[in-house]
């Protein structure tokens, strides 16, 4: 009695290799395929295969003017829709020389940080369920509602806000937003403390993640990974700090980094960042001046011929837009350099030699978002 017929086991020098396709229909993959080769319980090769949700965002951009590009550009990353739109607005403002009112800058920062939290909670929830921790799935998903409610009060939509526009934001914050925000953020901070107890300090979680998938700083830089993944490897590289956009240079906050470079560090940094986001939002609410929030523009803003490369720190890391304009109302070329796509090379690098059971712990700690990577 041999192996069942569907299991092709190839004999090779390393031993007997079983190929497992993780995705595209797999509870642990998303819209994405990871071809994993295992020898026993050890992964000997992993080949990421993105592209299942490619929508041609970059080509679509060339057919629409700058304003019309807003709604579809946030679709690749609806969990962080402000983060993915932010550099686009910065880039258009750069190309078309649009001034931004001071209040709009603060509102943008508030919304970007809210969205960072919303994204990181979503991410954390899925990390929890990937490690088999169902409570850690439900809690962040529930607490996300607090922040989504805030974002909805400001923008009018729960996830796809279409809120940032070149020249500011669409509308001012509603009345009593400040009190509401502070109340809910205080509660949210209290909830984050609970996460530490049940998840981050749980000895089984530490067993699962400490020392798993260690990425050295040199490798992290060379592979081009970004965001929390890079910072977990000890490289203090946060765009908000090194190249402050909008009002980040007037705010007092910390960009955290850890030195261990393992899955635990990659999972812990988002938690610290959420604390920091609460801090930033509160500062912004205090410092925010009054005034206009949007520069009045014609329906078709057009920029001079030229190019612009703007980057922001989104929830998953450095998100950059390379905009080339030829002077027409439509962009000549838009290139999204998304963090998820930049994490891909780290995946085979880290998975090789890991255990099969560590696959979800490593894969999801890389902050990889299939829809965003495919664009």
């Amino acid at each position, binding site marked *: 009695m041999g192996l069942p017929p569907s299991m092709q086991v190839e004999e090779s020098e390393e031993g007997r290799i079983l190929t497992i396709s993780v995705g595209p229909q797999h509870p*642990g993959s998303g819209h994405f395929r990871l071809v994993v080769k295992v020898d026993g319980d050890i992964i000997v090769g992993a080949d990421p295969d993105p592209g299942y949700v490619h929508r041609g965002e970059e080509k679509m951009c060339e057919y629409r003017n700058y304003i019309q590009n807003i709604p579809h550009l946030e679709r690749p990353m609806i969990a962080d829709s402000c983060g993915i739109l932010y550099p686009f607005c910065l880039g258009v403002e750069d190309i078309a020389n649009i001034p931004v009112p001071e209040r709009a800058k603060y509102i943008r920062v508030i919304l970007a940080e809210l969205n960072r939290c919303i994204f990181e909670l979503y991410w954390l929830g899925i990390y929890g369920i990937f490690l088999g921790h*169902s409570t850690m799935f439900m*809690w962040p998903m529930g607490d996300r509602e607090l922040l989504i409610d805030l974002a909805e009060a400001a923008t009018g939509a729960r996830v796809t806000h279409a809120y940032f526009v070149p020249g500011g934001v669409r509308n001012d914050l509603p009345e009593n937003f400040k009190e509401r925000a502070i109340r809910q953020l205080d509660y949210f901070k209290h909830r984050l403390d609970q996460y530490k107890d049940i998840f981050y300090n749980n000895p089984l979680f530490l067993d699962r993640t400490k020392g798993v998938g260690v990425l050295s700083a040199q490798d992290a830089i060379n592979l081009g990974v970004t965001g929390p993944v890079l910072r977990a490897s000890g490289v203090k590289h946060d765009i908000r700090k090194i190249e402050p956009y909008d009002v980040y240079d007037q705010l007092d906050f910390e960009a955290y980094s850890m030195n261990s470079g393992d899955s635990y560090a990659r999972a812990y940094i988002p938690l610290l960042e959420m604390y920091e986001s609460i801090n930033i939002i509160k500062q912004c609410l205090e410092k925010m001046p009054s005034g206009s929030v949007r520069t009045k523009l014609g329906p078709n803003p057009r920029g001079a011929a030229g190019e612009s490369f703007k980057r922001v720190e989104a929830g998953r890391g450095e998100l950059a837009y390379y905009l080339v304009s030829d002077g027409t109302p439509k962009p000549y070329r838009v290139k999204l350099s998304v963090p998820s796509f930049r994490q891909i090379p780290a995946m085979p690098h880290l998975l090789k030699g890991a255990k099969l059971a560590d696959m979800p712990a490593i894969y999801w700690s890389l902050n990889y978002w299939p829809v965003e990577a495919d664009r």
Partner: protein
Amino acid sequence: MATVQEFSFAEFVKSILWLTFWILVIFTLIILPIIFIVLFYVPAPEIAGIEMNPYLLLTMLVNPEIGAPLINLTLDQPLFRVMVFPGFTFAALFATAIIFVERKFLAKMQVRVGPYYAGREVFWWARSLEGLLQMLADLLKLLGKEVILPSGADKPIFWAAPVVLVIASSALIAVIPAGPGWVIADIDVGLLVVFAILGFFPLTALLASWASNSKYPFIGGLRALHQMIAYEIPLILSVLGVVILSGQLNLSKIVAAQEPYWYILLLPIGAFVFFITALAELERVPFDLPEAESEIVAGWLTEYSGMSYGLIQLASYIKLYALAGLFVTLFLGGWMGPLPLAFLGPNAPSGVDMFGVELLTTQEAVGILWFVVKTFGISVLMLLPRGINPRIRIDILLRTGWAKLIALSFINIFIALALLYLGVAGPAGPVGVISP
């Protein structure tokens, strides 16, 4: 515009009412006359001195005492014990209750609602019963689903595995006493039977995974095999302390041997090891890695669907009941309560009556109640880790099983031996506490 079939609840209710109406009409007009014609010619049989005529039930409604001999007869039947009370029906109902409690309990812990509408629609006057009928709804859903046979599957094994699992886990119940005298098979090698049956599960899991002809089930089956075998040894070793102290393998006698104090007070390490290994045997979080969905979809259950999946789930929850019952039997004094029976006072009824028949004596009734309460408590404790723990990795699991738990269970055995030789407890009864 295209015509659309719109679902209307009123139409649905109407159709059901019409269906019921026609069934009643056909029943009264055709089936009832046939029954009466048959009864006219065929004499009714007689059981326990009662004529089994079709009006018996109606008569019993008015005068219940008529049925008393019949009830007595039923209670004496071994089949009743196998099928109903300590046996399958009770276990299945208990398992269903555990599933419901697990879902509500977990939902509470996760700050959400859990099953809500099923049951609430029916018991609209009692909001606390929300979700009570969810188990029934799930059962109906699973019954209505197609059981998909994967191509290339080994048909006989694939079909047989869920049934075998249910049978095996139900067989565990046979030796567990649910009350004084209330045990299906009161055999002297009860504990050995438990371990013999437990040894059956990894094999079935492996066969089921093999028969599915798929990669994920195969890996899951291998993990299940590794895990169950690694944890069987500490499981058996942890119970050895109890056997040493009681000098018995018969579970009823083990319970009786815990008369002054329960073994969990004497052997806490053994109880701890047993609890952990029972969790691993049950594949419950944090030891659910044979079903780790983020790595291997659903482990060895991946290819099962419909009611065959439902049977596997039923088997696993019956097994949970059985292992919780075993824990109660071995360490928590089984049916014995923390208070003596005299606590009930002198005016306590001598038994539980129904239609004038004494179903249970007071001692039995209190014993069963304590057993159920304790088993339920232990079951809830077994559900608790699901809310607070992530899944652990196979190598950590095996290292814990082979190194730490076996060491702990050996320590437990030494403690038991020490207790025996010091004369604190033992088969002859504790010295100095109750001297004969």
